[in-house]
């Protein structure tokens, strides 16, 4: 097992990885920026290496400096967390070239899953259903129109190299498609240097359901059932839960098995998530994309299965076999997560960094258990350069109602001052009829309207 692990990330995920590392007897060393150097969570690491100023381009995104830092501190492996360099195939190759074990899949797999169309091809070859649409990249707008006529409007044109919602256009008819095609391609070329587009039927008001996968290099693959992440704002997840209220037990087993088989077909090693979109009308589940990294919401899967995903990530990277077999993975109860961000939900979710004059999250109000994943404490200053996630509250109950009640109490008892937080939004969503009945979808944030 590695003796020293370099964490190429910050904040909440760095804390999470450090915890898993220590559970394996590994000493965690963390990259920090100047903005993070003196944060209590950084000081709690065994060592830190300062890579540069707060701006991530000059610190956390510096691939060669990260590798150098890891080598100089005698680390054997690098954990990229999520975001930053986590899905950067070149960084993974750089680590490999310099003798560092990159905690994640191979550079080639990161590459193929990083482009929309190659990942769809791989998924289809592995037996998953795709969203109806073009067969590969579109030659020109005329082909787009042909495909749209076949699958039916509304459609989405999407950039192959796209992400974060860019290079995409929603088109309800042929004229919008003509315009949208040109716009999406131009936007993608500008943003990603690659204007290739494909087309998908737009499954409106679908549900975002994803399956957590773990694989080792000995061919063992596990799924940890599904998570529902349909509560989103501008493609950013806000509330997640496991299992999904949209699936019955049979669908759950089938989906998990399909995802695990797909991962096995790709020889997937490490932790990954296969994302699906459920068609509101037919209930069918369509492959969207695969994320080859740890996800923010991994904690809810850990609660309901009892498996430490990050610990397993590290173990399989060291060549060990997965600790559990699929037959021994079962769902225990229900878990819900709320992402508490330092944002103002009443002002278009504008980030509000600042000093946390008060930060208390009660975790003992019952009836179920509460797990709080955070890197901040009262008195900390939230720096401006990074995402605004302060804490993840996970409520675990013996069933969904108990989990809901547990979360309600925790949110009610939350005390955050000094920055605005998204708590009011979470509270409103949680008590909404759609969320209570489990019939919500990606179409809207149920129960929430801004105050202004």
């Amino acid at each position, binding site marked *: 097992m590695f003796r020293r692990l370099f964490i190429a990330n910050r904040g909440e995920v760095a804390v999470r990885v450090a915890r898993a590392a220590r559970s394996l007897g590994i000493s965690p060393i963390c990259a920090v920026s100047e903005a993070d150097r003196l944060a209590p969570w950084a000081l709690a690491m065994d060592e830190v290496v300062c890579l540069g100023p707060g701006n991530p381009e000059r610190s956390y995104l510096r*691939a*060669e400096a990260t590798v150098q830092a890891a080598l100089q501190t005698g680390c054997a492996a690098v954990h990229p967390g999520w975001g930053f360099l986590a899905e950067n*195939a*070149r960084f993974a*190759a*750089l680590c*490999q*070239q*310099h*003798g560092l074990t990159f905690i994640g899949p*191979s*550079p*080639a797999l990161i*590459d193929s899953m990083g482009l929309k169309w190659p990942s769809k091809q791989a998924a289809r070859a592995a037996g998953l259903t795709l969203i109806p649409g073009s067969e590969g990249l579109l030659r020109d707008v005329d082909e787009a129109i042909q495909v749209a006529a076949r699958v039916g409007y509304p459609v989405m044109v999407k950039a192959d190299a796209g992400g974060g919602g860019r290079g995409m256009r929603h088109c309800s008819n042929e004229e919008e498609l003509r315009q949208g095609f040109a716009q999406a391609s131009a936007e993608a070329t500008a943003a990603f*240097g690659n204007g290739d587009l494909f087309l998908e039927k737009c499954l409106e008001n679908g549900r975002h359901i994803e399956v957590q996968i773990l694989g080792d290099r000995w061919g063992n693959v596990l799924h940890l059932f599904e998570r529902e992440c349909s509560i989103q704002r501008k493609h950013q997840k806000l509330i997640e839960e496991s299992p999904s209220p949209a699936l019955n037990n049979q669908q759950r087993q089938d989906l998990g098995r399909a995802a695990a088989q797909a991962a096995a077909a790709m020889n997937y090693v490490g932790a990954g998530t296969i994302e699906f979109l459920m068609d509101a009308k037919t209930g069918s589940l369509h492959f969207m994309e695969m994320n080859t990294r740890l996800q923010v919401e991994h904690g809810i899967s850990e609660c309901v299965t009892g498996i430490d995903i990050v610990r397993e990530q590290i173990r399989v990277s060291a060549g060990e076999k997965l600790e559990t077999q699929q037959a021994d993975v079962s769902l225990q109860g229900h878990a819900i997560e709320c992402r508490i961000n330092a944002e103002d939900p009443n002002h278009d979710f504008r980030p509000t960094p600042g000093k946390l004059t008060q930060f208390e999250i009660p975790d003992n109000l019952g009836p179920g258990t509460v797990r709080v994943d955070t890197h901040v404490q009262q008195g900390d200053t939230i720096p401006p350069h990074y995402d605004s996630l302060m804490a993840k509250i996970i409520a675990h109950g013996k069933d969904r109602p108990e989990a809901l009640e547990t979360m309600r109490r925790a949110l009610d008892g939350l005390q955050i001052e000094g920055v605005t937080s998204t708590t009011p939004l979470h509270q409103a969503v949680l008590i909404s009829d759609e969320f209570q009945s489990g019939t919500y979808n990606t179409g809207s944030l149920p129960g929430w309207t801004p105050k202004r």
Partner: protein
Amino acid sequence: MAHIPLTPLGSPVDQALDPKTFARQAASVAERELTLAERRKKVSEGWGTKYADRVHAKNKLTSRERIARLADEGTEVFEVGTFVNHGVSFGKLASPAAGVVTAFVKISERWTMVIANDNTVASGSWWPQTPEKIERAQEMAKRLGIPAVYLVDCSGLFLPEQARSFPGRTGAGHIFKKNAELSAAGVPQIAGVFGDCIAGGGYMPIISDRVFMTEQAYMVIAGAALIKGAKSQKLSSLDIGGPEVHVHQSGCADVRLPDDETALQAIREEVAKLPSSGAEYHRHGMEASAPFHDAAELTGLLPADHRVTYKIEEVLARLVDRSMFWEVLPDRGQEIIVGIGRVNGLYMGFAANRGGLIDDAEVRGAQKPGGILYREGIAKLTTFRRSCEDDGIPMVWLQDVSGFDIGVEAERVGLLGYGSSLIYANSTAKAPMFTVLLRKASGAGYYAMAGMPYEPVVQLSTTLTRLAVMEGRTLAIAAFNTKLDDEFEIAVEDPEEAAAIEAGMKATEERIEADMDPYSAASQMDTDEIVRLDELRAWIELFAETSYQSNTTRRTKNPRIWSLHDLAALTEPHR
């Protein structure tokens, strides 16, 4: 430390070069590459559709069609010697591609060298330079240890020109000597016999390990036309030397098959019995990956005007996997860049010229012109070459060189000696090396950097290549030196004489300019192939895959114990 510390190289194209210049350069190259495409197409038509139709009428395939069927689906065929005999007339006749197609073809997952007589050009007969072209292809197969596949459909020598193709040291008979050499070296040879194979054509397949004949094929030392009594006995060449005779009676062929298609299928199955490629073993756990900066951008990165410089790092970045490179000895001899990159995950050595201004090691703070060779650059090349030889790393030479440094200092320092050391290293090395003439390939520089006389396995030219002993202007200066002053300006009073000298110099330059045409070089086999800039990466992938395919013919050290590590350890600055 025994890691191979590749690090990112190059920048995105809009940072490497301003878009206007890029567009202008790309357009200039595109124009030349259009000509290339047109000429390739012309060659591939052989003697024209009339002849192709004749072949089809006999229920046979043309040689290019045969090659297309042999190749694995979705793979590219890499032809060499396309322009041999380009622009040469034999009376009223031309011999496109010298009447034979030689190409790297992937068959059943194994790279092979296919040598196929062009049955649409004088029934596949041999012109002047046809034997040399075939021998060159055989040599490539031998050096790489990859199988040679002969698609024989050859009526012997093109008789009107026999004096130039029969008797000499490299004449047709030498093809069979090379057959023998390949066999002796353990290189598999497979022959398919598809048509009239007379005299030399009859001999071509025999030394091969497996010989397949179609029902229409015959092999004869001499055709029925020369056999007494053949007419009255109504004997045809097929009767004398068809499959009935050679498969069953003489044993000169192994298998008879009904037609072209079946024969090609049988050849594919035969190749599949050969050992699979060793390349996978030598990828050392890293899969093939494209360069991070798009190789297609090479089209706009090289200026057509050879006096304008560019950043060689940007070219190199677009030839190696993920645009990652380990530059060895970066601080010395900066007119040269050497180092290691992965190509499809396979380690390859690269040596390239750096143009523009470089630091003058002797005079602190001063700079001197790159693009030529000084002492340290030459020594760096020699040392790197020797390491690659020792370590079994295949090398790619990227030439854009005007020559050596000249003058008092250059001679005093002994560049003649340093250059000779490099020549010795290249001449005695066994590890595969490949040369690409990116742009200038001039004089001693062309020799030093493993030009054709040093027998690289393959030499490529681009449409920008200028190959000559010196640039036209230099030669003109040398020829008219007595009439020029210290600055090489015309130093003659009489205006008429001055005008004559100017005209003379101009004529000299133009003649050299014509000599430098890459198609002239290709026609004479002074270079193996002319390629588009955006094809370079694919060719280098071919070089890598073929270098590592055969596991047994050469030594290949595992990267941990490369001598390059010792070199790096001794030359990297102390912390």
